[in-house]
């Protein structure tokens, strides 16, 4: 058990790699293989899938002692959550509400990723950024994104 635990990171990486490889092989099985002379759409993916399985096996054989994989710290987790939310919020609101509300919201969310930024500061930053963006991209460059 200790053998596995000491090499957890490499083993984990190898298992994922093998999983992706097998998935590619299975999915490629749905396409015509063809022959070497006239390769079908399934040929190249199958080669790729198998090479990933082989690489995974090599990784497993040569797995090194690394200790347990490092977990992300609290700051990182917070950053990840809010930055992802910012992009998601932009994607969900841009077409319905336009640039100014959408950018304000996404900048506000992104700024909350850092503990030091107060929500009010984020909101003001968001509004300013949104207005500047609308001026640059809508008026200046004439992109086809509505402001409201």
């Amino acid at each position, binding site marked *: 058990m*200790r053998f596995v635990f*000491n*090499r957890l990171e490499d083993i*984990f*990486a190898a298992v994922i*790699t093998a999983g*992706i*490889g097998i998935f590619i092989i299975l*999915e*490629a099985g749905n*396409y015509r293989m063809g*022959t*070497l*002379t*006239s*390769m079908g*759409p399934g040929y*190249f*993916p199958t080669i*790729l*899938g198998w090479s990933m399985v082989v*690489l*995974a096996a*090599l990784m497993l*054989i*040569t*797995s*090194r*002692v690394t*200790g347990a*994989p490092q977990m992300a710290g609290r*700051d*990182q987790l917070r*950053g*990840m959550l809010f*930055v*992802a939310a*910012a*992009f*998601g919020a*932009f*994607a969900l609101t*841009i077409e319905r509400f336009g*640039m100014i509300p959408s950018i304000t919201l*996404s*900048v506000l969310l*992104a*700024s909350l*990723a*850092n*503990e*030091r*930024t107060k929500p009010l500061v984020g909101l003001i*930053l*968001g509004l300013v*950024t949104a207005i500047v*963006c609308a001026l640059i*991209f809508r008026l200046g460059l004439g*992109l086809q*994104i509505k402001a409201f």
Partner: protein
Amino acid sequence: MDTLFSNIALGLTVAVSLSGLFYCFLGVFLGTLVGVLPGIGIMATLAMLMPITFHLEPTLALIMLGGIYYGASYGGSTASILMNLPGTATSAVTGLDGYPMAQQGRAGQALFMTAIASFVGSIFGVILLAGFSVPLSRVALRFGPHEYVALMLLGLIAASVIGSGRSLRSLVSVSLGLALGLIGLDLNSGVARFTFGQTVLFDGLPLVAVAIGLFGLPEIIASAGRKEIPRVHEGKIRLREMLPTREDWKRSIMPMARGSGIGGFFGALPGTGGLVATFVSYAVERRVSKHPEEFGNGAIEGVAAPEAANNSAVQAAFIPTLSLGIPGDPVMAIMLGVMMVHGIIPGPTVIQDSPDLFWGLVVSFVIGNLMLLVLNLPLVGMWVRILKIPYNLLFPVIVAFTCIGIYSVNYQVVDVFVLLGFGFLGLGMRALNFEVAPLLLGFVLGPMIEEYFRRALIVSRGDIGSFADRPIAASILAITFAILVWAVVSRLVSAGKKSRAKEADANG
């Protein structure tokens, strides 16, 4: 000789046009601006600024992208010297001696020498580019699909194995990239592969979203939560106080020359590029130096040589990209991707068919580097002030610009989600110590390598042995195979040794 002059004249008409100058300037300016931000590397800068160039005509788009690229590498070293917060590994080497110089109050001299060394290296690289690309493309015109498959394999494998401590993982990254590149309609059969019924995926994954996701998002997230920002060691940064002493000059000239040569050599090779060039040139300088003990404590050679090497490599990397259509590193993969988006098929015919594009680009590199010299010497104070903007207020704005940038490429909301997905993929890969750069290289080359492989086998009627019958293809494949075997064997040997030692440690 006549043709060289007429070619340069042709390049001048393209690069010195009003729009040529404007987009060149815009490129180097924005490249430096984003590159100087701590923690944002060259790839992230390039990926985030790429959408702007999509609305330009191809020559201008490449001029601007080129400008962003070498602008970002100038900017990266500024952050590295003043704050020891390099965005990329290449500028980390500059920081080894640049940051100690800044701590000793010699930031000005370090920045000045960086700018000069970068300029010298760049110009040397451009001369190589102008001299070697045309003959190389003539040779390459005779290449068939076999040679292309071999060259692409060499590029992919060299890029993942050389200079990477974990070559198996990099090979996995390349394979994953190749597989992701297959998503979409198969050109030959019209079958939709790996699309899972999603019609938006029929055209394949959007390059911009993939690149920003892999490179930009993890860098934004990594620095988003950062609470403390290192102090900026600026010292006196006005042009007069920045001037290096006579001693500085004397000590820097030879390192710059050696760095340029080393950079030009490694830059032109597939798969090595700036990173290997900077490390090698730093190591060479330390070895030939009369006072090696000063390295790491503010030796000016340690700033001049890697900078010259890096920038020389940056320019030389364009040689295989433009003359063969084969990118040596992920940055060049992006360049190639952009060419394809604009409908240019990369390869030796580009130089023959559109000399205005090639020579316009070459001349614009010289002009862009001159602009950078001005932007970085008299105006360096401006970048220092940007470094002082509180980062927690800066990055939400970067997020906003990135959102608009990615959305403006296709006006597709899906692209934003693809970006997010690849952002998490990039984070996951980093957590497990996979490099993401080989993935991007595989992603761009995937469809091309499949197509050439298919063609090679059609031409030779399915005979896989035909690769061995062609001397050029066979020797390239032999080199590739040797690199591969060396990587796997050295890994097997060291894994056994180190693990036994460490396990004894961990259990003892």
